[in-house]
């Protein structure tokens, strides 16, 4: 075993990581993570506006991972069906990082959606949200593509994403969301 946990610790300390997780996402896990983050922000005396924004975006980002796992477990296989997420706070900015494997053909569709969202200004995002809310197809579990639009609207920032090629079939998709006060 070659793991030096102190290195991990220092790296996370340097990057101001408040919380990190790698593994399977379950409903219970999300409930706990949300509770932990809520009480951390309470301890840090964050203004209620900041708490709400971060909480809301966190719910969407983590539930995206949850639904992704739920929907892709079969095609990704056990070894690629785990995810990672981290939450950091530096100065007044919270960052939420998520990462998961994705099939290459789905990556292209996702990229097109993200680029479309990033091409819209605040008013256009509002219109796009209403349009998808009112006319969009609802997936079996709800949602149906609103999550990313909501994250972009609430964070007020462009979505920062990356697809890293893993092999012929798979890419690793990472998303960085920053929420400034």
């Amino acid at each position, binding site marked *: 075993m070659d793991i030096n946990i102190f290195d991990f610790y220092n790296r996370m300390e340097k990057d101001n990581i408040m919380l990190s997780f790698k593994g399977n996402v379950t*409903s219970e896990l*999300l*409930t706990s993570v*949300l*509770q932990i983050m809520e009480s951390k922000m309470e301890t840090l005396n964050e*203004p*209620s*506006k900041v708490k*709400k*924004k971060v*909480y*809301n975006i966190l*719910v*969407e980002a983590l*539930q995206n991972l*949850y*639904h992704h796992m739920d929907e892709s477990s079969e095609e990704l296989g056990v070894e690629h069906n785990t995810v990672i997420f981290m939450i950091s706070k530096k100065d007044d900015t919270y960052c939420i990082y998520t990462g998961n494997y994705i099939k290459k053909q789905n990556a292209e569709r996702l990229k097109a959606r993200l680029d479309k969202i990033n091409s819209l200004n605040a008013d256009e995002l*509002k219109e796009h*949200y*209403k349009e998808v*809310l*009112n006319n969009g197809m*609802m997936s*079996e*579990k*709800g*949602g*149906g593509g*609103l*999550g990313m*639009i*909501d994250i972009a609207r*609430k964070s007020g920032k462009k979505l920062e994403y990356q697809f890293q090629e893993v092999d012929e079939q798979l890419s690793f998709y990472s998303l960085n969301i920053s929420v400034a006060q």
Partner: protein
Amino acid sequence: MEQLVIEGTPKTPTIKFNPEEGKLLIQGRSIPENSIEFYKPLVDSLDSYSGAAKVDIVLEYFNTSSSKCILDVFKKLEKIKSDGNDVEIRWHYEEDDEDMLEAGEDYQAIINIPFKMIEIEE
């Protein structure tokens, strides 16, 4: 018609629908992973209801999965209104919560029911 009462949990709101008084309350947090299942009893109750309705939405948080279901609830109410009943939606939001106010305005733009935006003072 029977009253519908669903007690709130950390991820789901309290729902109280009293058909005799025509009052509906949705209050708390609505962030379940699967919101369709959660809202089904309410959507079904509204399906078989006809009469005036006073609706209070007092949500602290809701996720996008719930937003579709809340729209479904409003669409049922819109139908009830178009059958000739008085329907009013009171959308409550906390003083500094612009996102929640804006969410209410989004629904107001889609649904043909009078909305009242009510600020909750802290």
